[in-house]
């Protein structure tokens, strides 16, 4: 309970907000929508279990990510966050292709200008992250997903930048 006012979750669930309410620190009464959307997608009981399984110092971030996912699922009831992931992965692939073309062009120009000078190796930074994402520890993304099929907006909010979604 924040002060004397029940937290947003206890208000929505119409119950007494205990002093040690697990939701109270993360769902203040002045933002009822935040809990409402998380409850709609995950359910209060599941959220409570998830939070209780985490150390206290990680719960705020967990709530923020749950809110983000719930918002994504509400905006795109079919693909949710997976649509965003697919779109962003495609962006990464396109940029890497453009980068490879540009670096090849640099080599060509350098070869034309100074053919006798040994050329440095192209700066192709090992893309371990992309390899991680494409053959990651999770199951592969559903194969029929293409970025164009996502019904979400072209602008995928960065969880660290969009304050409206992140806390």
């Amino acid at each position, binding site marked *: 309970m924040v002060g004397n006012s029940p937290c947003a979750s206890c208000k929505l669930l119409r119950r007494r907000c205990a002093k040690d309410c697990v939701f109270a620190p993360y769902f203040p009464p002045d933002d009822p929508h935040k809990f409402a959307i998380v409850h709609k997608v995950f359910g209060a009981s599941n959220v409570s279990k998830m939070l209780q399984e985490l150390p206290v110092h990680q719960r705020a971030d967990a709530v923020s990510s749950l809110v983000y996912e719930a918002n994504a699922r509400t905006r795109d009831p079919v693909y949710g966050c997976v649509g965003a992931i697919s779109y962003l992965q495609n962006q990464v692939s396109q940029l890497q292709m453009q980068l490879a073309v540009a670096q090849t062009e640099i080599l060509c120009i350098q070869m034309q200008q100074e053919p006798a000078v040994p050329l440095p190796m192209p700066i192709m930074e090992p893309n371990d992250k992309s390899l991680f994402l494409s053959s990651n520890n999770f*199951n592969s993304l559903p194969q029929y997903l293409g970025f164009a099929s996502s019904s979400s907006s072209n602008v995928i909010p960065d969880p660290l930048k969009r304050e409206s979604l992140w806390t």
Partner: protein
Amino acid sequence: MSRCAACKYLRRRCASDCIFSPYFPPNNPQRFACVHRIYGASNIGKMLQQLPIHRRAEAADCLYYEAQCRMKDPVYGCVGLITLLHQEIHDAQSQLAKAQAEIAFLNASSAQEEPPQQQQQQHPAIEPAKQGDPQYYVQQIEAILENGDGPSSLYGPSTATWFC
């Protein structure tokens, strides 16, 4: 008729019109257990019922994927992946900008070294190259240098959609 994985898990009779059975077959009990743990059977059922039938399979797959991400990373779930991808995009854009600037610089240096007659001979009417062809970028940058535009002209309008 075998019960679907959801009805087996929930220990109930599997009706002929069970909402779960097309998407949670009995040979994959872990799939339903995973989504049930994160979303709950009731929420999954509601979400599927609100969708047209032809979209439910995709939705079930995506829910399973997100549930797996959440189980692997209980704090960030699949949002951690999104953050990582944003960072990758940012890094790749920076590298691309540097590479394009270097191309412009090299071409400008090359143009300054050549005498004017040779430049005219080397640039007959060239058929515009297609995007993706290395020659496309050369032509873009040459056009920019001839017009005297600033560095912002190096980037196409599509880059506006890369940023939030």
